[in-house]
């Protein structure tokens, strides 16, 4: 079930948990043996502490939810001093999701994280839709992503995964720019910009009016983008967006993903991540795949099938 994403990031299986949906892993240890996961990607962290946006930050939507949390976190230094010692010996890959609002913040944050022995990778968040002058400013243009990835690449020596925004016209171009600038892998998709209104009160449901859509409803969009990006780049693609069970996870692999992340589904079933890992193994056995890595891009597009 092993997946090698390159530059030292080797996963026990393709299943990771998506940033912002799994806390620091500690919140889920009553439900999941973390050793059953390929990795956990911890809450989006910025160089300086952030209070995040006001309540309400969440609205339920058909088969999904919107959020505008706004990267509430206590900053990189607090992570290093207080959280890292508690989670560094988890028996899985602990990956930090790093966000920022300036180039300098990203670079300084990456330098500090580079020094942490037990963090084998950064997921560079250039796609948070909920922060003013936020990461998404970098993530929606080829020039922006090229600049932030190449600068971080200079100071960060381990696996650099770049998390892409779906809120762009051509995500394959953005992915290619990240690859050229030195990314070791790309993960996609972050949330889709959305909005919800309370008609009775004639008010928005979110404090910031707009927010990021996630959950089962985004899966078809995510799957299509993973497929487009996987065709465009040579580096591994990590697929996420609405994965709720092992079948969904396999679909992302077939579309071209080398690994996957479980996000919003963790809220509905806190034990889902380990179940997906188990289910993917069953799928491989049923369909005669010796290695789960062989699922990547194994989509069979022939007219005869229809």
């Amino acid at each position, binding site marked *: 079930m092993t997946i090698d994403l390159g530059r030292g990031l080797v996963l026990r299986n393709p299943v990771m948990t998506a940033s*912002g*949906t*799994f*806390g620091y892993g500690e*919140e*889920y240890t*009553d*439900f999941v043996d973390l050793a059953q996961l390929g990795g956990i990607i911890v*809450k989006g962290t910025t160089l300086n502490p952030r*209070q*995040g946006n*006001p*309540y*309400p*930050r*969440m*609205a*339920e*939507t*058909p*088969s*999904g*939810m919107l*959020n505008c*949390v706004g990267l*509430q976190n206590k900053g990189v230094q607090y992570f290093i001093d207080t959280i890292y010692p508690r989670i560094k010996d988890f028996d899985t890959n602990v990956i930090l999701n790093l966000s920022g609002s300036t180039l300098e913040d990203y670079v300084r944050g990456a330098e500090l994280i580079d020094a942490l022995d037990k963090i084998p990778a950064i997921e560079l968040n250039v796609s948070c839709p909920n922060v003013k002058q936020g990461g998404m400013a970098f993530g929606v243009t080829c020039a922006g992503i090229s600049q932030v990835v190449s600068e971080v690449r200079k100071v960060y020596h381990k696996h650099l995964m770049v998390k892409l925004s779906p809120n762009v016209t051509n995500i394959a171009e953005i992915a290619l720019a990240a690859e050229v600038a030195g990314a070791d892998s790309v993960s996609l998709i972050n949330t889709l910009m959305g909005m919800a209104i309370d008609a009775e009160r004639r008010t928005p449901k979110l404090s910031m009016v707009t927010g990021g859509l996630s*959950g*089962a409803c985004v899966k078809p969009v995510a799957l299509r983008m993973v497929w487009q990006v996987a065709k465009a780049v040579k580096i591994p693609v990590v697929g996420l967006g609405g994965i709720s069970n092992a079948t969904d996870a396999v679909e992302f692999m077939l579309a071209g993903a080398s690994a996957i992340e479980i996000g*919003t589904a*963790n*809220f*509905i*079933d*806190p*034990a889902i991540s380990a179940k997906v890992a188990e289910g993917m193994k069953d799928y491989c056995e049923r369909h005669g795949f010796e290695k789960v890595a062989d699922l990547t891009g194994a989509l069979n597009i022939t007219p005869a099938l229809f």
Partner: protein
Amino acid sequence: MKQIADFTLVGKECYGHSVLLRLRDEQPLPEVLPGQFVQVRVDGSPSTYLRRPISIHDVDPANNEISLLVQMVGEGTRHLAATAVGDCINLVLPLGNGYTLPEKDETVLLVGGGIGIAPLYYLAKCMAAKGVKPAFLLGGKKASDIVRLDVYRSTGETFVTTEDGSLGEKGMVTMHSVWKERKFDKIYVCGPKRMMMAVADIAKANDVWCEVSLEHMMACGLGACLCCVEDTVEGNLCVCKEGPVFNTRRLKW
């Protein structure tokens, strides 16, 4: 330890817009503190994607039973209330921090508004088991809003207010005569936010210790998604993990 389990609905009592669900597990229940809550998965309701946080109304450890008093406010809770006896309901529990139990010689008032009375029943039972005599002050818009009044009355002295005067004293809970006639060491509150803030004001004015249980919209219920925050003197705190019970001194009320 938190757990996720399928409970069987073994009993159901309807009270107008609310329903009491008695749920039994095959396994012994984990220790449940008064004020903690469960996250209920609502099956078969396409518009209900996330679990619903519901406070714990009663616990019967001898029979592995937990009771929820659910008010039908939307599609999810209506669907939940329609569950048939014998069917399964999936719960994640116990979540959050409970109320702080009083010392044996302290006088306490448990103030509930509307469906907010739900967790106060189990709280009162835990107090009584410690030798504390709980007193309730329950408020609603009308008499039918105050459900299971008999079980509250059999657990402690019970004062009632209704806005239309159909039961007890007319007005809001904050207007009840008990506030003038009695002094309390500790006040425990659950109900609509405005009502809790008004009770917290009384507690503050009289320098009385007061805990409230907040009800914010939640996704994960575990402190992971950071959606249900309250702006406190310590910054934004997750109601699901740091609460739902807060001492009012920690709040910016």
